[in-house]
């Protein structure tokens, strides 16, 4: 009984995904009528200039925001080691809240904050700009990258901190005992020890940003990311081309996630 129940759960979870994958190899024109195996739709998608533009945007946003989040998140995690007491609790709370707040709230909040700031800044800019046409701040790469960095940074902080907590403190002392000054110890011992966590944090940040629709939808302005493009396309009906794009994105994301998992596991084994 329980077995059948869990079988149904997994069926409901994964059957739709499996269908998308299967129908992405449909050689026919109809998304719900399998007419034979073919990879025509993958070629078609690869030649779709709108899709390619959205993909390019997504890659730019994901790459920038994940690099920023990884660097800042790692620095924050290391600095937080030395914060104790009530202040630590506050930081911990803020970090977890950033992850738990629904994307839609982050999206709306970021949108309002940015638009208000941009309006104010644009007025000031217009009044002090010496030449004709003053530059205008507007939504675009910057705003998506900022919003994604914010969220992903919390992710990186949590992953790297778990790694720090699992790290053998005596390694740092051993390094100091062997004449390495604090900078040399950080470079030769701390950083290599944290590296699996940092890389995993980077991969998760990248995947999150690459896959995110909700936040991007609010703050993207005129820039289309890949998930936004897919969303706007399916309003004109699901085609096998969308299935092909979805399958490719899923394959990419899964690879990144599994790599991150493997890194975290292997890292924690070596740390012992």
């Amino acid at each position, binding site marked *: 009984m329980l077995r059948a129940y869990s079988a149904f759960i997994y069926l409901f979870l994964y059957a739709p995904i499996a269908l998308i994958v299967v129908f992405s190899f449909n050689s026919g024109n109809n998304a719900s009528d399998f007419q034979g195996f073919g990879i025509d739709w993958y070629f078609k998608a690869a030649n779709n200039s709108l899709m390619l533009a959205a993909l390019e945007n997504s890659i730019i946003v994901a790459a920038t925001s994940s690099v920023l989040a990884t660097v800042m998140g790692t620095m924050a995690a290391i600095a937080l080691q030395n914060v104790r007491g009530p202040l630590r609790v506050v930081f911990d709370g803020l970090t977890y809240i950033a992850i738990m707040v629904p994307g839609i709230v982050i999206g709306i909040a970021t949108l309002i904050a940015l638009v208000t700031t941009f309006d104010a800044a644009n007025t000031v800019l217009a009044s002090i700009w010496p030449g004709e046409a003053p530059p205008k701040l507007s939504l675009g790469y910057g705003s998506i990258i900022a919003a994604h960095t914010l969220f992903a940074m919390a992710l990186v902080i949590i992953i790297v901190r778990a790694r720090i907590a699992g790290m*053998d403190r*005596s*390694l740092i*002392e*051993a*390094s*100091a*005992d*062997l*004449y*390495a*000054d*604090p900078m*040399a*110890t950080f470079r*030769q*011992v701390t950083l*290599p*020890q944290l590296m699996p966590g940092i890389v995993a944090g980077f991969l998760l940040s990248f995947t999150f940003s690459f896959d995110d629709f909700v936040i991007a939808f609010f703050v993207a302005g005129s820039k289309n990311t890949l998930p936004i493009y897919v969303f706007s396309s399916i309003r004109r009906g699901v085609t096998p081309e969308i299935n092909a794009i979805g399958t490719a994105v899923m394959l990419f994301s899964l690879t990144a996630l599994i790599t991150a998992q493997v890194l975290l596991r292997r890292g924690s084994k*070596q*740390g*012992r």
Partner: protein
Amino acid sequence: MAPGQSQSSSETGGFDVEFRSVVKHFADVRAVDDVSFALKRGSFHSFLGPSGCGKTTSLRLIAGFEQPDSGSVEIAGQSVVGVPAYRRPVNMVFQHYALFPHMDVAANVGYGLRQRRPRADAAEIDKRVAEALELVRLPHLGKRRTWELSGGQQQRVALARALINRPTVLLLDEPLAALDRKLRREMQIELQNLQREVGITFVLVTHDQEEALSMSDTIGIMKDGRIVQFGTPEELYDAPVNRYVADFVGESNFFSGSVASCDEVSAAITTPSGLTLQAPFSRLGGKLQPGSKAAIAVRPEVIGLWQPGAVPAGLDISRPARLLNRIYLGDHSEFQVEADGLGAVLVRLPKHSTEGQGINGGALEPGDQVIMGWKRDRALALSEA
């Protein structure tokens, strides 16, 4: 291994480590409480005590992982107060070795050399790493990952990693605790040989009295952040300053009571059961005051057992006793006996030679009625605590 050391260790009377009234608090715990001592250059010293006695903190004060709240710490005659660990000429073997898991064995061993400025050239480092691995009898393992090695091998790598730097002092933090018994015995002998070979001052922290006794030139017994007694293993065993030391070093039976009377060299103690036992003072323990709490300490190998009626002349203390339990230990046996007025007493008898201990150990079974006793000159009257 230590050409740099040979000159300095030939100067006699030099001290490599010196504490003067060192105090270290953690929150409101006095982990190290007004401790002073000096360790002779080239000696093997141990700090012995239960966990929380301050021995590890003392070691960390030498290493530079902790700084004293007051007092001074000197290494090779130089004050190192305020000097961080990475500028001190000491190296440590950590309890769990703390080998860098992301480096191979050779990179671990050469780590200290690579930190030196100006940078030594790679060929020189490789040569010294090979020598250090040779010294700890692990040649050809340089390319191995540290976690592929056995506990004993990791231990040797940690030793090589420390010794390659030719430190003034080598610190060992319970280095053998993680090894099994046989391997531990081997490593004890090896550590001792190694120390003689390199001539560096070794400071070992341990809670294992056997380890401390078998390897050290001097031992400091610690309790509650203070050194209770500092001396050679023989001094600690033969002349403990109080009951705590006698209890920690070797095994003893203690019969406590209050001091009834004393003369210049010995005291008589009355036990709660009304028996009066007499014993000389410990050579280093000082005298006792009449009326104070004290204990008579008797080592298990000092006590003999006899058949009733066969008690020899010249036995100062003898009591009827019943054999409770026997532990066979090969060349000797240990017996738990219940002696009238004294309670449970541990007796250790050799298997064959009786050596004035009456019955030889092979002939006794639980339930036997015997007489147990000892010569009072072989017992000690010690203050409690």
